[in-house]
Structure formats: C-alpha cells, structure tokens
C-alpha cells in the first residue's frame, strides 16, 4: 500500500472496507459450539444407552469427557495467544463469559449435582442457553439467538419432565442450541469469504 492522499469518496470507501474486512476476519466461528454440542450429545446419549442396557454402575463415566473438553479449550486458548491474534472487545467478552459459564457448569456437575437433584439438567441447560443467546445477540447472528431461545424453552420445559427423560432434553438441547447454530455459523463464515 502506498502512502498517497486521495479523494473524500476514496477515503470513505477505504475506511468502510478496512473496518468491514477486519470485523469479518474476527467473526466467531462455530467450531467450538459444534464441539461442545457434540460432546454433550455423546455424553448424555451414552448415559442413556448404558441405562437402557442396565449398566447403571457405569453411567457416570461418560461425564469425564467434559474435563477433557475443558483441556481442549485450554489448548485452543494457548494456541490463539501464541498466534498473536488481535484482541477484539466482543471476542474478549464472549471468551470470558464462556470460561465463567463453563467453570460453573463443571463445578455444578461434579460437586453440587447431589444438591441440585432433579433441577440439575434444566439449570445446566439454562446456563448454556444464557451463553448462546448473549453470543447470538452480540455477534448479530439470528440462528444462534433462535437456537439459544429454543434451548432456554427446552430447559424450562425439562422442569416438568421426569428425571429419567432429562438425558433426552440434554441431547435435544445440544442439537438445537449448539450443533445446528454452530454449523450454520460455519456455513455463513465460509460464504463470507467466497
């Protein structure tokens, strides 16, 4: 790029183009949403299958996939830091919110599951819904907001369900609120670069 002066029209065009391109580059991608959605789907799907097969003793084991997911997130975070990616205010807010919600979910799941009892799954889903709705509204991506609202409704509906069916709620919530919006976000992002 040369350091020349130019007309007001060219100037305004350059500003608009630069800001749009920079913002586009840092649009959140759906990879992390799809990852957590799939993990939740697998964990609760496996628990359901183990229960159906009457292997009740082993139903807790799939839950240990969550800390592994946490380690993967830590790896992503370190990788991003090393790449010297520019910091965006929105990215920082969403990243911090993700960590706070994630840590609370882990603590609730591993320490307070007994105290929460039947409310465990709905509360778990409400926290996820909160994160998804905030993400959707912040990055102005409607499928994510809609997915979050549906997830919130599933969560509230789960209060009326028997605990035995909460696994289904979790799987449906993961599909509607995380996997599908995440895939749509990836498609939208790819289209923006074509």
């Amino acid at each position, binding site marked *: *790029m040369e*350091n020349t002066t*130019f007309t*007001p029209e060219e100037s305004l065009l*350059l500003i608009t183009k630069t*800001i749009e391109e*920079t913002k586009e580059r840092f649009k959140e991608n759906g990879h992390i949403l799809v990852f957590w959605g799939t993990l939740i789907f697998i964990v609760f799907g496996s628990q359901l299958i183990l229960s159906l097969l009457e292997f009740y003793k082993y139903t807790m084991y799939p839950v240990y996939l969550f800390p592994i997911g946490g380690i993967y997130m830590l790896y992503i975070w370190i990788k991003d830091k090393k790449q*010297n990616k*520019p*910091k965006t205010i929105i990215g920082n807010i969403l990243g911090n919110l993700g960590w706070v919600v994630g840590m609370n979910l882990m603590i609730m799941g591993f320490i307070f599951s007994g105290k929460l009892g039947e409310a465990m799954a709905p509360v778990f889903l409400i926290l996820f819904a909160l994160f998804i709705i905030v993400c959707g509204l912040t990055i102005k991506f409607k499928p994510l907001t809609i997915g979050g609202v549906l997830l919130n409704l599933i969560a509230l509906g789960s209060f009326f369900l028997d605990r035995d069916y909460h696994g289904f709620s979790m799987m449906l919530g993961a599909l509607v609120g995380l996997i599908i919006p995440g895939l749509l976000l990836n498609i939208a992002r790819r289209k923006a670069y074509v």
Partner: protein
Amino acid sequence: MFKNLDPILHSQLRLSIVSILMSVDEANFNFIKDETQATSGNISIQIKKLQDAGYIKVKKSFRNNYPNTSLSITKKGIEAFENYVSILKNYINPK
C-alpha cells in the same frame, strides 16, 4: 464552507492503520503488516507519525523471546477519526 481534512489521517496507509485499530481492541505490528500489505519500514514511519500526534498508543514487549509491538487507538485518536469521517461526509453530501 468545507473544513480542512486532518492531514495526519488523510493518507492511505495511516488511515488504514487507524481504521483497523478502530475495529479491534489491540493489534500487533505483524497483523497491521498483513492487512495493509505495506512494507515494515513504511508502516514504522506512519506509526511514529500517528504516535507523535497522540492518536495511537504503542506498547513494546517480548512474546516467546521475540519482540512484539502492540498498537491501540487512544481517545484522541477516536475523536480525530470521528471528526475526520464527519468532515468527509460533508464533502460528499454538502448541505
């Protein structure tokens, strides 16, 4: 009567740098270089001019044993940019 455009901002490379910094919280030198496709020497000179004008803040540090230069826009820079855009709009659509 048209107001004069800020000569610090009315140059292609300096305006690009400031536009990038308006959309991020903080960016490093290499990112600016990738985005603007300008040479390191040219970017350094323009950064110095913007820094001298008080429009950007430059933070030098080390990351993984390599020098790292982080840039961010200052309050004065934001005001100058907004003022520049408003004058530009006046040039394009005079009332």
